[in-house]
């Protein structure tokens, strides 16, 4: 179903972090950007579609003042809003927002870091663009920071802080089906280290629509598509819930180790899951909102030998191609449909 393509070499190896790959397709320029985090550096590669041109850039985590320790980056992700695209980088010290090519930093938000380290780690993790103008970022305390992003310029402001989660945020996802009907209802899901899921509706004041309690198994990656939450857990399970009601629709014993990344191709319903067990699996998801039912079919496995996978993303909305990163690997492995 899929075959391996030529890999893209990156300057550093990928670190063992959840969702450690972000992809941005720039159709007008026939380019795709990839970002992979290595300790305190974000490796960016710009790949031309004809496979002939690759250019690299590295972004460092911001050190607010030299006397403090190096800040490790937890996640880097592209945020696509109707008017602009940003690259958001979250670290132990705060949140940096760049123009999508990584050329200019447009915003910096510092986290409250204590003078001396405490037992509770401090960092930001979990990034998603939602609705017309919001970027949401999670924090280790469980808070979600909602930033209001203007259509251009650097006048980004902190609009709201959502305090519902009690554990560190692991991932955030916005409704990606493009359906205006669904976007009017629930358009954001946030998950944490205890496995709790919160479903929200964005707005000047975000509304909590539903909270699904966790079973103390960390939820490391989540997606929201056609009103359906798809969540990956440390136990290797994928669970599918109806967002608004919280009803469990499906449970898949998907992987033998901790899941690190999930992705959905919104036009085709293809689902990608990747874990520490070296496997990337492709599934097909279909959702019938009228009957509140889902169907899941397993389509394909790829084993990246001797590699704990930390990032897997589709490169396009149909799921024609996907890319994978692994701990200690200095390449982005690509697969396309045969």
């Amino acid at each position, binding site marked *: 179903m899929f075959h391996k393509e030529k890999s893209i070499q990156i300057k550093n*190896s990928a670190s063992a972090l959840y969702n450690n790959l972000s992809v941005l397709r720039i159709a007008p320029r026939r380019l795709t950007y990839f970002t992979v985090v290595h300790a305190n550096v974000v490796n960016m590669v710009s790949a031309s579609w004809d496979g002939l041109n690759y250019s690299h850039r590295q972004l460092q985590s911001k050190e607010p003042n030299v006397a403090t320790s190096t800040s490790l980056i937890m996640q880097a992700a592209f945020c696509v809003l109707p008017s602009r695209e940003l690259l958001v980088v979250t670290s132990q010290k705060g949140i940096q927002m760049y123009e999508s090519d990584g050329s200019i930093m447009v915003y910096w938000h510092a986290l409250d870091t204590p003078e001396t380290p405490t*037992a509770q780690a401090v960092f930001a993790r979990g990034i998603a663009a939602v609705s017309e103008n919001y970027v949401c970022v999670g924090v280790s305390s469980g808070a979600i920071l909602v930033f209001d992003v203007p259509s251009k310029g650097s006048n980004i402001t902190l609009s709201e802080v959502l305090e519902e989660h009690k554990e560190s945020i692991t991932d955030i996802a916005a409704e990606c089906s493009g359906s205006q009907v669904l976007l009017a209802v629930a358009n954001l899901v946030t998950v944490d280290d205890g496995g709790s899921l919160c479903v929200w509706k964005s707005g000047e004041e975000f509304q909590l629509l539903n909270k699904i309690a966790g079973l103390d198994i960390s939820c490391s990656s989540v997606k929201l598509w056609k009103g359906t939450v798809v969540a990956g857990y440390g136990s290797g399970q994928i669970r599918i819930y109806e967002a608004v009601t919280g009803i469990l629709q499906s449970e898949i014993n998907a992987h033998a180790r901790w899941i690190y990344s999930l992705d959905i191709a919104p036009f085709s319903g293809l689902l990608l899951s990747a874990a520490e067990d070296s496997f990337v699996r492709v599934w097909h998801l279909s959702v019938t909102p009228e009957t*509140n039912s889902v169907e899941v079919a397993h389509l394909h496995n790829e084993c990246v030998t001797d590699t704990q996978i930390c990032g897997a993303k589709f490169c396009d909305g149909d799921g024609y191609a996907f890319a994978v990163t692994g701990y200690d690997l200095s390449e982005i492995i690509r697969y396309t449909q045969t």
Partner: protein
Amino acid sequence: MSSRTLPLLFINLGGEMLYILDQRLRAQNIPADKAKKVMNDIITTMFNKKFLEELFKPQELYSKKALRTVFDRLAHASIMRLNQASMDKLYDLMTMAFKYQVLLCPRPKDILLVSFNHMDAIKDFVKDTPSILRCSDFQLIRQTLLIFFQDMHIRVSIFLKDKVQNSNGRFGLPTSGPVPHGTQVPGLIRIFSCTGEEKTRLQFNNGGNYTSAIREGSFEIFGDRVTKLGTNMYSVSRPVETHMSGTSKSSAQHTKVNTAPNPLAKEELNMLARLMGGLEVQKAGSSDTAFRVNLFATDEEEEEALITRPDELSYGIINIQATKDQQVSAELTKIMGEFTDSGHQSPSSSSKGDDLLAMMDDL
């Protein structure tokens, strides 16, 4: 990243160090009483109350350089002496072994079981055990450790022989065997109706050869840990070699963190000085009791290893003179005083760290 990683890193690396030293002491036929004294001295130093108190404070991980310096001191906390090449090799073996154990832990909290395996072997206990951390805390610790060990691909002969490590230095991750406790064997899709009843059951091929989870290891002070990770893999009859050649390619992709001027340096040095103030060092004078341990089969091999070690794999140890010795501390204070008075060093702040750094550059 996790600020609770350092004690685990230290205890596990210390455990591996003791396994290796024990093997070398026996291989070199060091008299039993001397060997026992060496092991006792090192263990006592490792579990020194003041040292542990410092260690267990929530803090960021030390840099590779700083940690290597701590272990250098620890290895010399007895009458045993190690040459540079042997110390390098010892450290290579310790770090690769623990990297392997962290990577292969089926569940993040199994890192605790690995630590218990090490501690069982050391047969000593930490009095103030940390509060039990949650599963997700362990994953953060594990991720922090994996960042620390990133890009290390030194090949260890015992790993290569056991097929645990490939010839390119990467560890084998089997897609067979029991799944971790708390995980189901992959292969089942269940679909539920809105009332919660199971509607459909589908099977899929998981591409591996997994079996159900076996019993969980014990997290009590005493107990069957079940996992073999963290148990002693050395014996006198199995000499352990490390291989540098072929690893330089991957090392070249190492971030240039070590060579750039490190703003963290003075903070680390302060921490190190505090930590080492609690580490007593045997005077390297008494030649009748002191002896040297060689990590290699012959002295010639050891010399050869030092010369041929690739630059990018050198650990760059810092020599700190911070001892409890009264006379030396008085000297130190006097020298530091001279520095601030004459404004000898760089125009930056006159903090203690800067003085220490400047002093070392002049040494």
